[in-house]
Structure formats: structure tokens, C-alpha cells
């Protein structure tokens, strides 16, 4: 059609017919190659091996201090898979904000995987440095989610809030906002999880893997955190670096 609404002549009409069918066929074909294989990561949150329940349940940290959790969220990005033959497949850039209070956020769909047999999966906890200084972002990186520091630009890579009777904070609040993308206080951590058995993803298939993230790891190893000493940390710094070193180990594979 021409902009004025009149038919643009027989040639175009005929070509349109043929092309249209071609387009349909080709688009189906290309979509199938590019994005037919997907990997769904189902993430469940635990504390010392028990299912995480917000607010209502008390847990113990490695120092034996009681605490509860009200907010638990973090970014995952920079996914890659390693094939059995050792080839690293870097997946298209994607950023996910996972939050305990949102069931939908705990199902991550990774698209455009090549079919193959994989032995491990890697990802970053946090947001890569460049996105921390590239201006206003949208989607999961929209500062509207409250995961961006306003006074000292940069993403909060991971956030855990709750209470502990041992803290001296008002209302015994615990507040850990872990971030920092500039040396010397860098908090992005890369996790590589070996799969318990090779993961075969066939052409056109969607495969699910279940991961668990254990919040107790934040305060456990290698740096034991006492809530008496640190009931919160909300800027780049050594404590944030240590907690990131700790939570680097929070993930485990629970099932293929």
C-alpha cells in the first residue's frame, strides 16, 4: 500500500504474496535455530538448608546469633555455559533481579542457547561494571527497583534486610546493601557451578535446572560476620567485599 492508501500496483501485490510466504517460512526457520533451546533456572532460597520464610522464621548465623529475613534480593547477569568439550558459550547479555517475595523472579529463562551437552554453568552475582556508569537503564536495571545508590552511583548487587535481637540498631534492624564496582571495593562475583551430570539440551528443547541459594552463606565462610559488630553495611567497603566473598558460595545445583 502506498501512504495514500491506494494499491501500489500488480507488481507489488504479486511480490508481496510470494515474499510474505517466504518471510513467514524464513522467520520460523531462523527463530528455531536461534532461540528454540531455552534453559530455565528455578531458584529456591534457603537458610542453612531450610526453606527461606520471610519475617516469620528465626535463623542462626555462624556466630550463633538469631536473625530473621524480610528482604532478600540480588542481581544475576553474564551467564555462560561450558560444554563437555570445554567450550565456553557466552549467552546474550541479560540482567535479572531475583527477589524472595516474587515467585516470577525466581524463574530465569535463558534464551538462544545452542543445542549441546553442558558440564557447567557460570554467572555473575551483580551487575557488570560498565552498566554501573552508563546512565539511566530500564528493565531489571531500572533504578525504580530500589537497587541503585543515589548518592554514590552504582548498583546494589545484593540486598538482605531483617532483624536480629543482638543489634543495637533501632528496631534491631539488619540492613546489608552490598555494592561497589570500582577498585579497590569491587563486589561483583562470578559463580561457576559444575553440574552433577552432563546436561543435554536437544534442538528445540527447554530444560530446567533447579538451584538453591542459601542466605546463611552471607555471614558464614570464609568471613564470619557477627551482627553485634555489623548490623548493616550500605556503601562500598571492606565489609561489603567480604560479604560478597561469602555469598559467592551461596548457590548449589539441586536438580536437572
Amino acid at each position, binding site marked *: 500500500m502506498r*501512504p495514500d492508501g491506494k494499491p501500489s500496483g500488480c507488481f507489488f501485490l504479486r511480490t508481496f504474496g510470494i515474499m510474505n510466504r517466504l518471510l513467514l517460512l524464513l522467520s520460523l526457520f531462523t527463530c528455531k535455530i536461534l532461540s528454540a533451546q531455552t534453559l530455565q533456572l528455578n531458584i529456591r532460597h534457603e537458610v542453612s538448608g531450610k526453606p527461606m520464610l520471610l519475617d516469620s522464621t528465626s535463623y542462626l548465623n555462624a556466630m550463633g546469633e538469631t536473625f530473621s529475613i524480610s528482604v532478600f534480593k540480588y542481581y544475576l547477569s553474564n551467564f555462560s555455559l561450558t560444554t563437555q568439550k570445554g567450550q565456553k558459550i557466552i549467552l546474550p547479555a541479560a540482567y535479572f533481579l531475583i527477589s524472595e517475595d516474587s515467585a516470577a523472579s525466581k524463574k530465569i529463562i535463558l534464551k538462544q542457547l545452542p543445542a549441546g551437552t553442558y558440564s557447567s554453568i557460570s554467572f555473575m552475582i551483580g551487575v557488570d561494571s560498565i552498566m554501573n556508569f*552508563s*546512565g*539511566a537503564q530500564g528493565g531489571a536495571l531500572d533504578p525504580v527497583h530500589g537497587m541503585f545508590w*543515589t548518592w554514590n552511583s552504582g548498583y546494589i548487587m545484593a540486598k538482605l534486610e531483617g532483624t536480629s535481637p543482638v543489634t543495637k540498631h533501632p528496631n534491631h534492624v539488619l540492613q546489608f546493601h552490598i555494592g561497589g564496582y570500582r577498585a579497590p571495593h569491587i563486589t561483583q562475583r562470578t559463580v561457576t557451578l559444575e553440574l552433577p551430570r552432563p546436561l543435554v539440551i536437544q534442538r528445540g528443547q527447554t530444560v530446567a535446572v533447579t538451584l538453591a541459594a542459601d542466605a546463611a552463606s552471607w555471614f558464614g565462610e570464609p568471613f564470619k560476620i557477627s551482627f553485634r559488630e555489623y548490623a548493616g553495611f550500605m556503601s562500598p567497603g571492606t565489609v561489603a567485599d567480604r560479604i560478597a566473598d561469602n555469598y559467592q558460595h551461596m548457590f548449589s545445583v539441586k536438580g536437572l
Partner: protein
Amino acid sequence: MTRKAIYILAAFSLWLFIAGRGTHHIPATDPYILRLPDSLPRPVYDFSKNPLTKQGIALGRYLFYDPKLSLDSSVSCGFCHQQFAAFGHFDHAISHGILGRMGTRSVPTLFNLIWQKDFMWDGGVNHLEIQPLTPITDENEMGMELSALIKRLQGNAGYRQRFKAAFGTEEVTSQRMFRALAQFMATMISFESKYDSVMRKEPGVVFTAEERGGYRTFQQKCAACHKEPFFTDFSMRNNGLSYLSSMNDVGRMKITNNTADYLKFKVPSLRNVLVSAPYMHDGRFFDIFQVFAMYDHGQEKGNTIDPLVKDGIPLSEKEQRQLYMFLNTLTDRKFLANKEFSEILIAD
């Protein structure tokens, strides 16, 4: 065969795209050409992701002057950033905001921002687009939660239309809001002072003897930090301003946690300096002669004082007078009166 089909497909897609542009009412935007003097370095701000358009700038200006961006709809960006004060806050040492609350630092001037890498007195904000997030959400300034603000704008039919005009659809997102504000702020360019005319050797414009003397003093004693042509080198330094326990402002150290950054603050531009009093990060000096006096004999020389000023800057009475006359030539009257930046009344 497959390759041929792909070529045909590509050509067809291109045709569809071109034809579609005419028929599907995507509103057209008018590109805006920012005119900058040739002598200037390339801007730091990356326009490729946010090209200037008349509609984008207009939306940014509307947002800039809209008090609805604050919790109780009382304070706009333009409330503190007044054009006649080079977008600083006339006569206010410390910024103030909703419900009579007070901040902790003075309002910085706004111009030539596209060359600036770090924002705020401590350089804590790393991008022009992200900068407005701080005053909007600060409880002592506009006190507005970002998600609540985006909902407020989404619920406003006028804004949906303005976002559509600027970005093609009615979708209101924080990214679009920040980009529109950045577009407006990017157009705040100030290079039309008498000093600029003299440097460009415009016919009939010359420094007076006093101004010329002041320029010499400036070059000898001030220009290392207040570097031409921006009259700042955009660095963070401790200039010897005394620490006030009542304010307890540690400056850049708050951002880096590094004791070497104690009491370091951004070197402000001297452009439009005589219309943007009060001075220093806490606005403690209302008169430029107090600033001269501080450098001459009033510094506090702590560990982190900048080597360039650690021995003070002796300024005779004559030098101070001439320096004042020279700083006067940095006032850009065209910028201060430019109607493209002036306040607009927000009716809805």
C-alpha cells in the same frame, strides 16, 4: 538458494520498515542541533543513546520546572536551580526542600554539564542522566520515591502525550524521564561571556586595563585548578577551607572511604561566578572577596590540602580588585536570559 532468499527477505524488510514509517502514526521528532564552539573538546556525554530532539528537550524542560516531581508538589528542580543565578540558588548557602527541610550543601550551578564526568560536590554521581535521581529522592530535597514518581507521571495524560511526542509511545519510564532531563540540561551551554568574545577576537571587544590585569593574576594564581576554557579541571581537591564540626562534611572521602580524600570537593567552574554566590560546598561565603581572603590568609592546612594551594595564594588589594573585574567578564548574560531555558508554568 538460502542466501538469495535472505537477500530478498532483507530487502523486503527494509521496504516494510520504510513503508511502515509513513502509515503507522509514529510521531516524528525534530532533531536538535547543539551548536558548540569548535575549540572545545568532545563532550563526555554520549549522545548516541539519547539523541537530542526538540520534543525531548521540551519534555525535559517541563519536568525540570514541574513541582509534581516532589513529594508534596512544592519543589521543582528549577526551585533551587534558578536561571538568573546560572542555575544555582540565589542567596541560599544550603539547599532546602520540601516541608522546610534543609540539606547539607549548596546548590551547584548548571551549565556545560556534557563535559562533566562526575557530579555533586563529592563527585559521587557518575552520569548526567542519573544525577537528578539524587535531589528527587533525597528526603531533604524533593523527597519523592522514584517508583511513586513514575506512577504519578503515568497517571497524567499530559505527560503521556509529552512522552509520546519525545519517545514515540506513551510509555512513561524512569529511563525516558532521566533522558529527557539530560537532553534539557545538555542544552545549557555557556560560552557567550565577554571573556569568550575577547578570546574569539570579536571586533570591538577588548578587556579593560583592570580586566586584563585580573586575567594575568588569574592565569598566574588560579588557572591551574580553574582551567580554561571550562574554568575548572573537574577534579576534587582540598583547597584549605576550614572544617566545620557543625557540618561534619568529609567530602570525597564519603564516596571512596579513602582517608586521602578527606575534605576534597569538586573544583567549581568560575564561569558566571559573580551571579552565583554564595560560594564553597557549604555556601559559607556570600562575597567573592571572602573567597580571596580565604586563599590569601584564611586556609586551614590539613594533611590532604592540595599542593597547589598549600602555601596560600597571596593576593594584594589591587590584584583582588582586578581579579573581581576579570571574573565579571565570565558572566554570560545571554545564557542567563536565554528564553529556551526560562521557567514555564505547569498548569496540570
